[in-house]
């Protein structure tokens, strides 16, 4: 009974975690940008959703879509600003790490200044009334709504990558940016679009994240970034499909730990991360391919 409950809860959370992490993987995959401000983008999506709900009575589910266009645009512009310095850098990964660490701190500080420190939450009733019964047990309705919203959103990202020309070009850049340039792909433009899409999908999950993580507050970013990193490393860095697997493994492991080893449950992300790094460094779905 309880085991089944934890597994179902883990799958629901796992889908949400996949949605939560996929943008980070997309942005990393394209130009090896380590977006340490990932969690802060989620946080901003959360505040946007909160504001839209309380000021304009817009359902957070609609906000999931509404936050996308402005973030794509913002991401496109930000990429154009950072592309130069990054492409000239000796070690672009390290530079991006430092750059986005700064962005993360600034975002957190700005939100704190303008919106204050308090945690805010959106009532569950804005999405669904009452629990959902499944296999004889009752689950919070919001879990199903959020997991249900995560499937099409993650699916859209995967469709975009695997069924559109732009997506195929994006994957070509992920595989090898220099060769992509050698076949005539406009790497700068496609990367800028992908960066925008990656940020947008991240802000988008922020709009419903408050229902799963107990609210939204300015300092939540760091923990969410670490969580998302754990998920994409478990799944395999740069492998978008792996993110779904990583999310599900993470979600189920976490819920089982809450059931059987509650005091240790907060260690789960790190234990899984270390285990993957030590025993299967390329991630659960990563293939060992020779690099020459």
């Amino acid at each position, binding site marked *: 009974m309880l085991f089944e409950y934890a597994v179902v809860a883990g799958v629901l959370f796992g889908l949400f975690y996949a949605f939560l992490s996929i943008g980070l993987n997309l942005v990393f995959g394209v130009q090896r940008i380590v977006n340490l401000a990932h969690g802060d983008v989620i946080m901003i999506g959360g505040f946007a959703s909160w504001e839209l709900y309380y000021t304009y009575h817009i359902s957070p589910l609609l906000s999931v879509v509404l936050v996308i266009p402005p973030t794509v645009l913002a991401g496109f512009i930000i990429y154009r600003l950072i592309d130069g310095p990054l492409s000239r850098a000796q070690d672009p990964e390290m530079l991006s790490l430092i750059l986005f660490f700064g962005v993360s701190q600034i975002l957190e500080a700005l939100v704190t200044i303008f919106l204050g420190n308090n945690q805010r939450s959106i009532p569950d009733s804005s999405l669904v009334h009452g629990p959902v019964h499944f296999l004889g047990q009752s689950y919070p309705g919001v879990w199903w709504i959020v997991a249900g919203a995560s499937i099409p959103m993650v699916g859209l990202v995967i469709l975009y990558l695997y069924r559109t020309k732009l997506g195929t070009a994006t994957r*070509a850049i992920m595989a090898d940016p220099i060769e*992509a340039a*050698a076949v*005539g792909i406009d790497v700068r433009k496609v990367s800028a679009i992908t960066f925008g899409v990656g940020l947008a999908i991240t802000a988008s999950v922020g709009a419903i994240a408050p229902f799963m993580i107990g609210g939204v507050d300015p300092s939540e970013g760091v923990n969410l970034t670490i969580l998302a990193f754990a998920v994409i490393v478990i799944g395999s860095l740069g492998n978008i499909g792996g993110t779904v697997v990583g999310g599900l493994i993470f979600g189920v492991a976490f819920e089982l730990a809450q059931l059987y080893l509650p005091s240790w449950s907060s260690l789960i992300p790190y234990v899984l991360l270390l285990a993957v790094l030590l025993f299967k460094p390329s991630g659960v779905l990563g293939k060992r*391919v020779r690099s020459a």
Partner: protein
Amino acid sequence: MSKLVVEELSVSLEGKRVLEGISFEVDTVDIVGIVGANGAGKTTLLNAVAGLIQTTTGKISLDGVDVSQLGPEERIRRSLGYVPDGPGVFRSLTVRENLMVGGMVRGDEDIEMVITLFPDLKNCLSMLAGSLSAYQRRQCAFGRALMSRPSLLMIDELSLGLSPISADALARTLPDIAAYQVGIILVEQDIDRTLSLVDRAYVIEGGSIVVDGSPGELLSQGSFVEKYLWGS
């Protein structure tokens, strides 16, 4: 006017002069070889022509247009094809997707010409390029570059990772490719094989062209034979 004209090209990488005063021309009917020792600057030259690295001085023209300041995508669009010295394929994409990506620059997804040249690829179109044999992978790399319908194809290391038999088999497709009115620039370690394929060859040493001529002319020069055929 030749398809490609390179005049007084110099390139520095990380403050070090790698190419110095390179000038040559290639037309769509030529098969040209570039030979030289490891580190002589052959790959750098192709990368500079393709626009993957910045040139320091000099001029590169395609069909009489100066492309020195244009990005690689603009040069590929001007009918330049490139099989680079890397994997040559996107491993995580299928063969069909590799070819599609190759054709994107012209908005052309017609793979008929590639299948005609490399019939082996027909049966593995939906396989991941990373799972192909080395020979198939090289064919896919050629196919990918030909998808943009270049009138000049630059090949870095034809025999990369191939057994001598596979390398010979691949080399036999060069005349077929040339038959589509495609000029070829071939960079190759194996000088014997290069000289058997090309109309003309340039020898690079220390970043400069030291000698050039037809295979016959080169082979009649004792110092060339001594250095590149009998040497290490």
